[in-house]
């Protein structure tokens, strides 16, 4: 067992983890945050995407020990003070989900991307989300949701 200190959604956690434990299972089973989903176990689907120090990573490709001393944000950490993140509202408003299993990963990947590129084109959104699979929507409303959120967010900032 290895001791790690990791900040998850703003809360400091000290935990003993097995060195081989994946970050996604640390989040789901040790911390109890099940919003981050597992869709493939081969780093293909992106359902497990979280932010590590603000950048999107597939949490099934990292060991929990690699998050030691760092900051992890999961889908549960996206809303603040009871206010939904604009991406969350946009996915809801634009039918950006059906079963919703891909949604947390999509939102986290999109959040990281919009941070880099606040005013993307449709093509750029598609390129950025290539690592996230959705089996239900055909992606059209996901693209719409992200563009909508980008509009809202840059509007908010302006």
């Amino acid at each position, binding site marked *: 067992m290895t001791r790690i200190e990791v900040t998850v959604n703003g809360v400091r956690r000290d935990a003993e983890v097995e060195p081989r434990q994946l970050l996604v299972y640390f989040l*789901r089973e040790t911390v109890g*945050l*099940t*919003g*981050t*989903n*597992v*869709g*493939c*176990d*081969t780093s*293909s*689907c992106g*359902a497990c995407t979280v932010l590590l120090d603000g950048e999107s990573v597939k949490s099934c490709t990292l060991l929990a020990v690699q998050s030691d001393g760092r900051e992890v944000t*999961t*889908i*549960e950490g*996206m*809303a603040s003070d009871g206010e*939904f993140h604009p*991406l*969350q*509202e946009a*996915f*809801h*408003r634009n*039918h*950006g*989900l*059906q*079963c*919703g*299993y*891909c*949604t*947390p990963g999509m*939102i986290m990947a999109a959040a990281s991307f919009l941070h880099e590129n606040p005013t993307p084109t449709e*093509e750029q959104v*598609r*390129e950025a*989300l*290539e690592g*996230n*699979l*959705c*089996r*239900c*929507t*055909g*992606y*059209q*409303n*996901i*693209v719409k949701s992200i563009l909508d959120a980008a509009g809202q967010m840059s509007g908010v900032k302006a």
Partner: protein
Amino acid sequence: MGDTRVRERTRGGIGEDVARIDGLPKSKGAFAYASDLWADGMLWGHTLRSPHPHARIRSIEISAAVASPGVHAVLTAEDVPGKKTYGLEFADQPVLAWDRVRYVGEPVAIVAAEHPELARRAAARIVVDYEVLPAVTDMKEALEPDAPKVMEFGNVLRHVRIVHGDPDADADVWVEGYYETGMQDQAPLGPEAGLAVPAEDGGIDVYVATQWLHVDRQQMAPCLGLPMEKVRVYLAGVGGAFGAREDVSMQIHASMLALHTGKPVKMSYGRAESFLGHVHRHPSRIWMRHGATRDGRLVNIRARLLLDGGAYASSSTAVTGNASTFACGPYEVPNALIEGTGVYTNNPPCGAMRGFGAVQACFAYEAQMDKLAAVLGIDPIELRLKNALSTGSVFPTGQVIDGTAPVREVIERCAAIPLPPEEPTGPATRDPITVPGGAQNVGHGEGLKRGVGFAAGYKNTAFSEGFDDSSEAWVRLSAGPAGPLVEIRSAAAEVGQGVYTILTQIARSELGVERVILDPSDTNIGSAGSSSASRQTMMSGGAVQLACGAVREALFERVRAREASSDPAGELRLEAGQVLESELPLGPIERFLDEPIEETRVFHHRPTEPIDERGQGAIHVSFAFAAERAVVEVDEDLGLVRVIQIAAAQDVGSALNPRSVEGQIEGGTAQGLGLALMEELQVVDGRIRNASFTDYLIPTILDMPPVVSVLVEEPEPGVPYGAKGVGELSTIVAGAAVAAALRNATGRELNRIPVKPDDLVGLAEPPTSSGPPAAPDVPGPRSVPEYFGLGAGQMEILANDADDA
């Protein structure tokens, strides 16, 4: 007077683009999927599966596994408390194999341990002594007399023969084709999972991601040796389904382990196991001959279809029925001979997947229509219009279309959607990501050819062949703290398709109340039938509509009893929380709700008939039609493809939530596109070789083009709100349209989907056939297991339930 009229409308009713009721919880990460379930002190279940496509089990040695750390139970077939087999249509599938295994991945033993890893390790210590037997893994060989037998009675699951008009009628022109489709996987993003909790009454509570709670229970209870009421099934969050969850996966296993250990047991498949743990889309081989007059009227169609059902029946009987009855497509043809056979093999079992037999048929008949158009020198769209079905047309089964059939409209409106602009081809003229292979930096835009392909197709809504898949709903109207409140209870499974939202919309419209809540789906109410066959809006929507209607009548009785009516002949109506009489407000609804009103109703679709000896009968309930056009770009040197646009027009009857309908079209199109271009389980000698998302590819966001859709609304008479099922049509036509576009771009035959790069560059020869197999000798048009007295699964049990009621 006019001023007092209520102009306000109830918001969030039918026809509106209401946002999903589960949209916010799902985008917050607060929605609990089956894989998220947790109970204190729970154990983890693991399944040991057969490594052989066909083998005799000589012995199973579990002692080392039992002695493994953290293990609480190791169970085999001997430990199944009740009936040893289960199945959707026939109970031909062992809960745990004994004596024989019939496919790679068949469950042989189950383990419960304190951690998933401990369970896996213990399972690895179970020693099964197998005697490997010859396997049959080719669907045509399965029909040969000396083929290894998968079932004692042979390998024929069902043979349907449809004789229409004069099958010997001659035509001016004939075209012939042979077609194959591969084994597709539903690949829902959330793998199979559930939690079984032993109850104090000796029964079991099971929380599971499924499509049909009651049929799970009807299969589980006999195997667990429990009366039906002691098995309670609750819907856990479902991460997509598409047919994969119509069959039982871990339900019985987890329940056995929980009952045995007295502890809650969770089972959660990984992706690789998920590919083994559910049924797939039937691979098919199809032979067709189309005869027409010189001016392009269909005269005669000969179709022979072969479907690989794999090792167990699942819903293969119904899939064979569908593929056969739909074999001529949405076209009128006076003469036809259609023969469809579903066979058992030692391949993984196949069953329900979105499109359910209609997908394979559409790929073949639409390729035939294009061939015919080419031979006749007629525009392919014109040829389709010339032969389009309409209301009053007769199917080869003799069934007359008495509902709406806007086939011409969907074809015309799809064809009228503007084509995307031509793009510059040559290298360095555009963003490399937009050329085929650009995302992987292999293609650079040389030698691109554009192709356009078109396909029309159709499918039924709800279950067929005499099956009464009714749905029950309970509705309660009460005075809540913030005005009137409607509560709905239904066992309909929300699998992502949006049925929960539709049910609340229906209640709003029927009762004029905006605050609607939906109870969780479970078996404490009557069956809602399956979330399949595009049927929940019609069936559970119909049940909620009926129950709301009964609540409304009861409310109106109260109103009439209490209010001195100004206008005794005046009509009562509910709108925006008000009771109206002749459009004038009588008062808020809650004024009449000192006592809540509750009603339960069951909706049945109109009865259908079984298929007779000549394949005749009013077999299906209602039909919906669709057309799609695909525009593709092919890199002829590399065999790479980009789909540029999909245009879709769909007959939806009426759209109860247009955005949600469009979402179904887009998502269904992606699965059809996947089948045409990339999705195939590589099954070699009965073994799936690509059971992962690195090797089984599904379309990414870059593979999917924009889908431009048009909804054609001609309300269907006799069904709630005139709404037809919308879930499957786009999957049916998309694959055929993309394949047609690839043919158009390359001039190649491409008679097998998925189309591979080698097919596009000419490195692989198109599959050929020495001809269709002879029709098997069967006792009749029903499932062969029935004639051999094999215990029926749900059909028999449901019939008994109905008798008890």
